């Protein structure tokens, strides 16, 4: 993680006569601003308080233990895993197809495909939520985990496309030509040569999509029928004071999970580049 010597030298050259604005301080203040609320909630999850009030009366692990007795909560968490798995798998596969098509081919509709694959990012989620809600209603598709996963696959697609596209651009097409000169068909070349080379980026894209889905609530509220994902369940429980401490404990636990996954995705990507 050290910069090459050239970059260092260049940085120093510019550094001559730079402003005295304490940017390091700005960064530190930002980090404090970002972590303090989470830290307060983290500490609070171990408190015996049953409402969102200070000061903390005492400390306990009861809320964490109670997670495993709450059947609904565990079901919701399991649903989230299924939805995230489906959405991430679909989004990553489609993102890969978009990436290869766009980087390796010139065809009519290429620009439109790029625009479409990125478009879900620039439409407010409630618009998409309403749209899919009405579509499934018209088609008589009952709302379930699958409808949530379908919605999440659409909003995760821009992320998968972006990650895979940037990796594919850096991949030398001569490698594919070599494989085909040696007699491999194009699909075989993709499977045996391109996919392994993309490996880490694929995993990173998949994890990113999984996290996007796992944490998403605005779309899921509209598309969840009886199968609630964890954020939908949490959203519904937030108005009930007595279950609040357990909900916070579970949310903290899952947060540790997604943060770990994010770090893994990030490390994979920075190592493969």
């Amino acid at each position, binding site marked *: 993680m050290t910069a090459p010597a050239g970059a260092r030298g260049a940085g120093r050259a510019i550094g001559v006569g730079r402003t005295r604005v304490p*940017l390091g301080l700005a960064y530190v203040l930002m980090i404090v601003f970002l972590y303090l609320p989470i830290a307060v909630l983290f500490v609070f999850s171990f408190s015996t308080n049953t409402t969102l009030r200070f*000061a903390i009366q005492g400390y306990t692990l009861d809320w964490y233990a109670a997670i495993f007795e709450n059947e609904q909560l565990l079901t919701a968490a399991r649903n989230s895993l299924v939805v995230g798995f489906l959405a991430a798998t679909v989004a990553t596969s489609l993102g890969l197809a978009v990436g290869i*098509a766009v980087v390796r081919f010139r065809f009519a509709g290429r620009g439109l495909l790029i625009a479409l694959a990125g478009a879900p990012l620039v439409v407010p989620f409630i618009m*998409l939520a309403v749209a899919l809600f009405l579509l499934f209603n018209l088609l008589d598709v009952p709302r379930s985990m699958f409808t949530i996963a379908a919605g999440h696959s659409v909003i995760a697609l821009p992320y998968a496309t972006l990650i895979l596209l940037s990796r594919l651009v850096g991949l030398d097409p001569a490698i594919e030509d070599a494989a085909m000169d040696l007699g491999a068909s194009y699909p075989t070349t993709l499977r045996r040569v391109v996919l392994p080379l993309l490996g880490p980026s694929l995993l990173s894209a998949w994890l990113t999509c999984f996290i996007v889905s796992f944490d998403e609530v*605005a779309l899921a509220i509209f598309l969840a029928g009886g199968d609630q994902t964890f954020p939908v369940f949490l959203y519904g429980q937030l108005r009930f004071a007595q279950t609040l401490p357990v909900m916070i404990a579970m949310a903290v636990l899952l947060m540790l999970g997604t943060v770990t996954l994010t770090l893994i995705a990030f490390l994979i990507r920075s190592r493969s580049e």
Partner: protein
Amino acid sequence: MLGRRGSLWFLAVPPYLWLVLLFVVPLGVVAAISLLPGAGRINFNAGWPSLNQYQQVLETPAYLRRLGISVGMAFVIAATATILAYPVAYFLAFRARGRATIFLILLLVPFASSYLLRVMAWKLLLGREGAINWVLTSTGLTHEPAGLLVYSQAAVVITLVYVWVPFAALPIYAALQRVDRSHLEAAADLGAGPWTRFGRITIPMSLPGALATFFMVFIPTVGEYVTPSLVGGTDGIMYGNLIQDFFTRAGNWPLGSAMAVLMLLAVLVLVLLALKLVDLRRVAA
């Protein structure tokens, strides 16, 4: 044996179909439903397509006011997040050097943590007996707890700025990394001071990134309904809450659809207007 050209079909068609079926068609469905004249759910027998729903929205000042408030709040939130993120991104791009990656990860970890949890954290901080009031009263800074901080427009703005700020740093950081260092050196050689270099080179070259940040926060925030329903109270609810209500309790889908279409149109007009005002290509060149 499948050639390259033949493979293109297998690559391009599935994503096209998926996006048409689950993105383009549904948006068309909303537009179609918004033209149904009747109230309630979907009723194709209520009469010919009409602009009744739009007329009703446009003639209800409360709806339009809420749309205006939501656009205003989204503007404040996006602008604040961009302005707060800029110096942080600048630090990462120009001062952090070898440790930039680790500092960037540290910045992004909160963004990867649960969205609802972060909203909850602010509820806990801003509540009447929340952490902030507790610190204020127990340190003797104030004798009585300050009025209710949560359940207000301000609470929604603070919470959403908090939610978006780490993400906002990313496009700006990417833009600042692309600022050609030799331009800066050349300017320094020609006698330009640090502030001149910043104003004449760095700012113009990073403006596209800052604008991208602004819109990536602004667009989703206009349609936000989850955070306002948790920390907004009656004052802080947004246009998205009205839409959601028409699809749940109020159960008037055509009217809700018309409101959603109007929101998307408002967003599109604002985005196009902004792109017109700031010619991105000229700024980048």
